[in-house]
């Protein structure tokens, strides 16, 4: 999911590929900025996504 806004307090508003938004705990991936892509599982970001090599 893509970060829309880091809210502080370890939470961020994130959007799925088609615009659905949800709250995500980001404690495990460090500070995030809008536009970062995260792998989210059960409401927690467990990894950052690197854009894949073609």
């Amino acid at each position, binding site marked *: 999911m893509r970060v829309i806004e880091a809210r502080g307090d370890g939470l961020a508003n994130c959007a799925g590929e088609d615009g659905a938004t*949800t709250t995500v*705990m980001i404690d*495990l*991936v460090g500070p995030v900025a809008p536009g970062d892509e995260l*792998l989210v599982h059960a*409401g*927690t970001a467990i990894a950052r996504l*690197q854009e894949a090599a073609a």
Partner: protein
Amino acid sequence: MKFVDEFRDAELGRVLAGEIVAVVEPGRHYKVMEVCGGHTHTIYKYGVDDLLPENVELVHGPGCPVCVIPMGRVDDGIAVAMQPDVIFTCFGDMMRVPGSDGTLLDAKADGADIRMVYSPLDALRIARENPDREVVFFAVGFETTAPSTALTLMRAKAEGSSNFFCFSNHVTIVPPLRALLESPDLRLDGFIGPGHVSTVVGARPFEFIPADYGKPIVISGFEPLDLLQSVYLVLRQLAEGRCEVENQYRRVVPYDGNPSALQVLEEVFELRPHFEWRGLGFISHSGLKLSDAYADFDAELRYEIPGVRVADPKACQCGEVLKGVIKPWECKVFGTACTPERPIGTCMVSSEGACAAYYNFGRFAREREVV
């Protein structure tokens, strides 16, 4: 930029399918286990196995976390849910898993206040919104989901919550794999390793599979192309006589996992001496309970829990199906005592389990072979 669509490309899929055909020996039958329930879902959703040659068989592994919860634990959960002041929360797919006397859905019909959540954070929010009730989160999942539970408990502790409790059924992935590999009648050639679990634990914990048991494992992503490529990589290792941990999901999985996640797991949980798995029996050090620091949040301490072990019916042969020793239809209870409507074992509980899939679609598979 789209991260997802490029990995679903059908054209590339056909190319990979061709490479798989080129790397297998025609006369040999290959059995490759995908460990993770998420992989099983992708395979099913996109029909990935339909693109494989006849002699490459995917065996669905023990990695569906709700399906492996044994009947006794479901009964315990229902006992907690039936307490008068409790709001019981769990993931949606947990609600259909049978205990010895019905499912959580049945308990809901009996009047229990059971609510479906999408994240443990939702459960904590319900606790905040209902200060005069006690909210229990029935936690299930591997190392993928456990960090979410752990972070939520840390939040609950930080905000001084006194009405939020966790009933932990979290499990770890390595012990059941080792248990499978220990069995002398195992009929598997290699493994597709769990991508999301590995983002947390890394690839390193799987090194014992090639080192001690001589089987290749490829950590895989969750798009259909990821899976095809991972099958290809396992088969290529076999063809070249290699045997190692390969990381197909390098774009997400660091070799050493996510240290912050491992640290929160360490703080909030501790290993149980043993934990029971549906269809697989007791496995040492395979379950997580809340650590002493979080004892105040432990539903197992807060409520009287029957804790009665309900034996899997003797005739249930999920273990053998998982090991690839027998086919679903060879199990003694398949289709009689154990059906998708009234499942007994883990392989029938999930609609994507080997037995449920065979029950529902076996006829279709047969037609495909005839065609």
